[in-house]
């Protein structure tokens, strides 16, 4: 295995694109090094992106926030403006693993690892985040929900890297929240998860909403029917019942030792209701 730590995204892309063997991007390494240890992957080349200065920064931009692809999740909690604007995203990213893991892991890595149970991904999808991608044929953007192609597979092409995650500007009277179910209180992988991001008007009526579910299908799901169920309401009991039903209806989960199909389908609705209540309160609704 060769280890390279280029100083620019362009060099990183060139290294990845010309490699004839198996090449992997190393961001936080909390998935890659575990897979290497287990013998699941045997890279010929590892390209460490943490020496690329621009990818280590969180920037406030004209359109919101740009979070570099190599920013560890722990750093998100230290950016007061980001925490204020997107508390659900920051909380989700800091449910990944332990403090030790959060000191290394990145949201871009969480996304590109393409686990349906990735904690930060539903929150990013609900937030309407996009990723900036650089590759051998130039740069492009993708909505976060369009990055995973299946379990462990993404729509990135050979040589492409996620250089940053672009969060939109937080709208006035809006709030986001992320909840997951795990059988313990910490250090576990979501059995089911849900993120809600919504905006209300002066009367407390929801005008915009995005709802995303994790760990109930091969990829994180953006559930448009769930958003429709609460738009135009003040999140009253009838709206919450419709939201719950829409989320449960969208689930196509697996049955395993961590949760049955029935359990995951039911809990998805419960988490959606609770996350919507938190998001609504954060938006200033009563």
């Amino acid at each position, binding site marked *: 295995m060769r*280890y390279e730590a280029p100083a620019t995204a362009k060099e990183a892309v060139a290294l990845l694109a010309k490699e004839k063997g198996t090449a992997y991007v190393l961001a936080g*390494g909390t998935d890659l*090094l*575990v897979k290497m240890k287990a013998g699941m992957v045997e890279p010929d080349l590892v390209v*460490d992106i943490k020496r690329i200065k621009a990818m280590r920064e969180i920037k406030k931009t004209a359109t919101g926030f740009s979070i570099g692809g190599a920013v560890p999740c722990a750093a998100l909690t230290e950016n007061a403006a980001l925490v204020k604007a997107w508390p659900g995203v920051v909380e989700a990213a800091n449910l990944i693993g332990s403090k*030790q*893991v959060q*000191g*290394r892991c990145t949201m871009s890595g969480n996304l590109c690892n393409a686990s349906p149970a990735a904690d930060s991904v539903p929150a990013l999808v609900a937030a309407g985040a996009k990723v900036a991608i650089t590759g051998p044929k130039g740069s492009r953007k993708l909505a976060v929900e369009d990055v995973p192609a299946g379990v462990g597979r993404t729509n990135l092409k050979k040589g492409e890297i996620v250089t940053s995650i672009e969060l939109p500007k937080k709208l006035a009277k809006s709030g986001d929240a992320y909840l997951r179910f795990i059988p313990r209180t910490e250090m576990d992988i979501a059995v089911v998860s849900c993120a809600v991001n919504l905006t209300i008007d002066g009367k407390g009526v929801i005008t915009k909403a995005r709802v995303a579910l994790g760990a109930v299908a091969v990829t994180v799901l953006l559930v448009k029917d769930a958003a429709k169920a609460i738009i135009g309401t003040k999140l009253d009991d009838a709206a919450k019942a419709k939201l719950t039903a829409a989320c449960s209806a969208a689930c196509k989960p697996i049955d395993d030792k961590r949760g049955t199909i029935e359990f995951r389908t039911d809990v998805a609705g419960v988490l959606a209701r609770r996350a919507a209540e938190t998001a609504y309160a954060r938006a200033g609704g009563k």
Partner: protein
Amino acid sequence: MSVHVKTTINGDQVEFVCGADEPLLDVLRNRLGLTGAKEGCGTGDCGACSVILDGRLVCSCLVLGAEMDGRSVETIEGMADGAKLHPLQQQFIDNAALQCGVCTPGFLMAAQALLRKNPDPTEEDIRFGLAGNLCRCTGYDKIVRAVQAAAKEMRG
């Protein structure tokens, strides 16, 4: 492929050559003789290999030695001031917060990182802050008490 690395460990300049895929934990233990960090799981679940890298708590089994060029690492070996133990170390002894001791260096590094960020943590803060460290002997109660006592002592 071998990589030549110049780094700082516990304030000292260190140079080493390691394999491109060699974890920092193996570099510390096998090349530099710093055997305080332990390999429990090797997959970032147990925290026994915890070190502080550029101010952040990490599992050294999930860091490559090759990444260390120009970085700064703190390990358990740098915690005491010569013969004088750090308050966390002394309180772990005084509170009997260890039995076999394999997890202890990791717990101490995690507690150190926690108290730097939060000098007056609640019991819940401590339990969350140490959730990435597993102990299979004592249970966690005495460890939490030791961290509380050290935090109090360090606040003065």
